[in-house]
């Protein structure tokens, strides 16, 4: 295999894996912060129990997110050194600011939160978890500022064959960032919410610690409803921005080969033949694509063939059509998962509001447990659509992915590292799921016997280290 393909595979694998943990961390830390706020405001012990229980899951998840994030930063220099040289001036700045502004904050205040239950006053301790949330939020903002530059390069000038920043303000008010950030953040909050509602639903079905899990479900389902609606609305704005700035990605995600009629119909499913550049077996909803693209039921959308001809005019000969099937189907998977989550969150909120949760039908509870997988599917599909749909560009219109690879790194070296990281990540994934399941089974009131015998409470211990074991 060639180094480019291998570097792509490695990037895809490590990024997708990393992005299982990041949104869950952001979502969980918000819920933990809300629970601890309720504890401080109302003084009820149950909220502290809840914050600690979900906090344990957050910490396991956070650890994996952090270590896989280190690899993300190193990877640019290791596998994509030409890319790093080309955009370091612009792309490096948000990365450095992310480290300075967000990583230090997260890591310091998470340390204070874990170890500080008895060292800090209630309010200061609460402030720590909110600062961790703000840290994760800022981290997402800066990393998406960097990503937005790749999707829609702004605030720079070409100089000596390199992109050099000349307008920092343009970089952080990039239209792409303004639509991408809310969509991703709502997606992250939704992830935390559906994990908490799913686990709570499971526990409620088993009638275990009902009080804790009913309250957890109620809080999370509201966050789930708000964020899933937020995802849908922000997604709509993102699609409209896409039509303007990356029409090829839009056309590919719709499987539109030739420019559509006016108004444009939305293709629900289709069998796509990239060789012949045509589709068969399409099911269409009239006018919907116009609405998605322009918020009105008129206007046609450009097809890939026309766009490819235009791009050839601008960028020279070549094939500018991304992998169409992948883009098309990942878009539909994302929308289907998102739509299902909105419906579930609505019904769940209704049940919580009418206090009918315990009488809820088993099918709904089972569906909520299954729904734990939905945000992960949607998040992954969303990123696949975004990143694959941008190909062959790594910086849209300026640098192709092929040109960004490290010239001095051999295929053998990349193959070795890909295998090593995949093996390490597989172990991490298995261990993490196993520890998650154990913690969930043990429940919020689990007191480990070894911990009682032990005079020293272990901050990394079974209980996550917050309990003082007094003798």
């Amino acid at each position, binding site marked *: 295999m060639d180094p480019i393909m291998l570097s792509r595979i490695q990037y895809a694998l490590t990024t997708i894996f990393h992005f299982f943990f990041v949104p869950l961390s952001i979502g969980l830390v918000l819920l933990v912060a809300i629970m601890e706020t309720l504890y401080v405001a109302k003084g009820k012990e149950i909220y502290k129990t809840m914050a600690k229980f979900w906090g344990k899951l957050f910490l396991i998840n956070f650890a994996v997110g952090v270590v896989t994030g280190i690899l993300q930063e190193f990877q640019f*220099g290791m596998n994509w050194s030409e890319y790093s040289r080309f955009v370091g001036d612009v792309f490096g700045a948000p990365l450095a600011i992310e480290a300075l502004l967000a990583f230090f904050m997260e890591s310091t205040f998470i340390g204070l939160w874990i*170890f500080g239950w008895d060292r800090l006053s209630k309010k200061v301790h609460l402030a720590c978890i909110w600062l961790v949330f703000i840290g994760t939020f800022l981290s997402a903002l800066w990393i998406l500022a960097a990503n937005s530059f790749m999707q829609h390069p702004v605030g720079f000038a070409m100089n000596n064959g390199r992109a050099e920043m000349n307008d920092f303000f343009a970089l952080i008010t990039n239209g792409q960032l303004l639509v991408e950030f809310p969509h991703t953040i709502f997606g992250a909050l939704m992830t935390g919410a559906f994990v908490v509602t799913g686990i709570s639903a499971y526990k409620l079905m088993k009638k275990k610690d009902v009080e804790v899990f009913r309250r957890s479900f109620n809080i999370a389902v509201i966050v789930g409803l708000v964020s899933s609606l937020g995802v849908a609305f922000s997604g709509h704005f993102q699609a409209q921005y896409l039509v303007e700035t990356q029409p090829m990605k839009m056309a590919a995600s719709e499987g539109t080969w030739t420019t559509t009629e006016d108004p444009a119909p939305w293709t629900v499913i289709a069998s796509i033949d990239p060789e012949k550049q045509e589709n068969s077996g399409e099911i269409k909803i009239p006018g919907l694509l116009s609405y998605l693209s322009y918020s009105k039921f008129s206007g046609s959308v450009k097809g890939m063939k026309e766009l490819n001809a235009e791009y050839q005019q601008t960028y020279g000969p070549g094939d500018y059509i991304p992998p169409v099937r992948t883009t098309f189907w990942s878009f539909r998977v994302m929308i289907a998962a998102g739509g299902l989550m909105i419906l579930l969150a609505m019904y769940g909120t209704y049940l919580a509001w009418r206090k009918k949760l315990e009488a809820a039908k088993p099918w709904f509870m089972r569906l909520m447990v299954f729904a734990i997988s939905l945000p992960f599917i949607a998040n992954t599909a969303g990123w696949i659509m975004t990143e694959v749909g941008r190909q062959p560009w790594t910086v849209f219109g300026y640098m192709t992915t092929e040109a960004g690879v490290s010239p001095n790194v051999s295929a053998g070296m990349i193959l070795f590292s890909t295998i090593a990281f995949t093996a390490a990540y597989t172990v991490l994934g298995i261990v993490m799921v196993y520890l998650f399941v154990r913690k969930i089974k043990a429940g919020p009131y689990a007191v480990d016997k070894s911990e009682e015998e032990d005079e020293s409470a272990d901050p990394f211990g079974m209980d996550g280290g917050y309990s003082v074991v007094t003798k």
Partner: protein
Amino acid sequence: MGGIPLLLNELWFVLIAVLFIGFFFLEGFDFGVGMSTGLIAKTDRERRTLINSIGPFWDGNEVWLLTAGGAMFAAFPHWYATLFSGFYLPLVVVLLLLIGRGVAFEFRSKMKQQRWRKTWDVIILVASALLPFLFGVVFATLMKGLPIDDQMQMHAGFLDIVNPYTVVGGLSVTLLCLVHGLLFASLRTVGELRERALQMAQKLMVPLAVVLVLYAVLTYLMTDVFAVRGWALWIMAALGAAAFALAAYFIRQKREGWAFGMTGAVIAIAFASVFIGLFPRVMVSSLGSTFDLTVYNASSGPYSLKVMTIVACTLLPFVLGYQIWSYYIFRKRLNEQHHLEY
């Protein structure tokens, strides 16, 4: 006006140097504590106490490395690209070790089974020893020079990276971190563990002195940094020797706080010397000095540097402030005779 952007290149070199020095000062002691779990802890509880002593800090310490990497990417993209792609395989190992070590702290105590604990303890031990070794090797190669061509591409073979000079460099950093970490452990514990940590640190001072002197001599013989920087490096060497002597004195006096400060000073002086020796180069080419990467030809544009300078100057006081506050909150010794207070 013309002179100001040029100064920013130097400023960012200094900032990156400071970030690396901070990283080795801070993560240095948690590497050392990680290694000491295999040397001075006799029971699982003692290992736990040692790990607890770095519990609230190690993650934040590691961010110094991430920030150094990010700053390098932003301020000197060519340095970042040449270094990271050139050291591909060593960095794969570094990443695997960082990943393993990071989750080991979180995972080790989640289950009681002996085999589970042992596995993660071994990972903490091995990673804590190998990481400073690898960093030492890489920094030694930076001083010695690497085959970097006219395209700023580095094509290093095994012997370019692993040779007597770099191995001594690796050993120096590892031992230095170990002693530094033992002193941190003695500072954060009481009773027997504290005694053992101090004794072990005392025993290691002689071998440490030997490798450090050997490394300095080899540096004089095999690199041009003494020739290029002259008296500046001799002053650093003298300062380093003085700090080392004070560290030995304070260990004898059982004043571990001062001793810890002094080993920290040795680390800071050693890495400051590396950066002083390199400047204005960031990577020395063994194929000819015209191919050297310098703070001028490897840097971002002046606008980028200016923006980053403003951002860094605004944020750094806060970052330092809350990090110091966190050390202040967890300043008490861990007493494993009774119960740990958190």
